[in-house]
């Protein structure tokens, strides 16, 4: 997997997690801003999935195991939409905290994906 993409994604989702935490600190609810942030994060993850599929189709194999890598890849796509919906359902500052948690988990997933890819 291209390392620069993963690093940018990790920095990006961490920044978005920070944004969500600022929203929580300002006592905001989940609104257009954070839903947009989740959408941007999800778009970045989709790019990563496309890239991984292209690499896998080209014969590259994750050192740490194919099944585990596919699991992380699929998992990376479901976290943010679920976090956004679950956070949207909470009409208080704790909604943005849920979204922030989603971004943080996503960052961890990307790191783990890198570890599995490189072995």
């Amino acid at each position, binding site marked *: 997997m291209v390392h620069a993409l993963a690093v940018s994604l990790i920095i990006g989702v961490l920044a978005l997690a920070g944004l969500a935490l600022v929203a929580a600190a300002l006592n905001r609810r989940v609104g257009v801003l954070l839903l947009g942030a989740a959408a941007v994060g999800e778009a970045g993850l989709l790019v990563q999935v496309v890239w991984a599929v292209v690499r896998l189709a080209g014969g590259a194999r994750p050192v740490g195991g194919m*099944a585990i890598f596919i699991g992380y890849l699929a998992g990376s796509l479901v976290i943010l939409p679920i976090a956004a919906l679950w956070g949207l359902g909470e009409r208080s500052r*704790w909604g943005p905290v849920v979204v922030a*948690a989603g971004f943080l988990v996503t960052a961890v997933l990307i790191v783990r994906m890198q570890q599995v890819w490189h072995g």
Partner: protein
Amino acid sequence: MAEEAARRSGPGRVLVAVYGVFALAAGSRAGVQIATRFHEAPVAYVLSAFAAVVYVLATVTLARSGRTSYRLAVASCTIELIGVLAVGTYSLTDKAAFPDATVWSGYGSGYGFVPLVLPVLGLLWLRRTAPR
């Protein structure tokens, strides 16, 4: 039943979300371990699966209202706390029994110690939202 509805709102909302992540993480890990190399460390992998079941139970019962859910949530958080302390200690003293980590190994060090903190926060939250 204001307390009842409050269990999954506010901080409870975050708690359910994080529990959901751990249910997913522990479940996937146990699934892969048991499916691909069960014979290597059956005890550790059965414990992984057990941890996954407890996380799923905690996630569902924290999210649901009702007295039974409340009791089950308390029970699952308590089992988790005992589990992470017992497995954490055991994994440090007898490394041979745990060649491959579970969520609870090393007190959850592989998961940023969240497995150790989570049941404590869960029990505190349940105490605050206890039905009368």
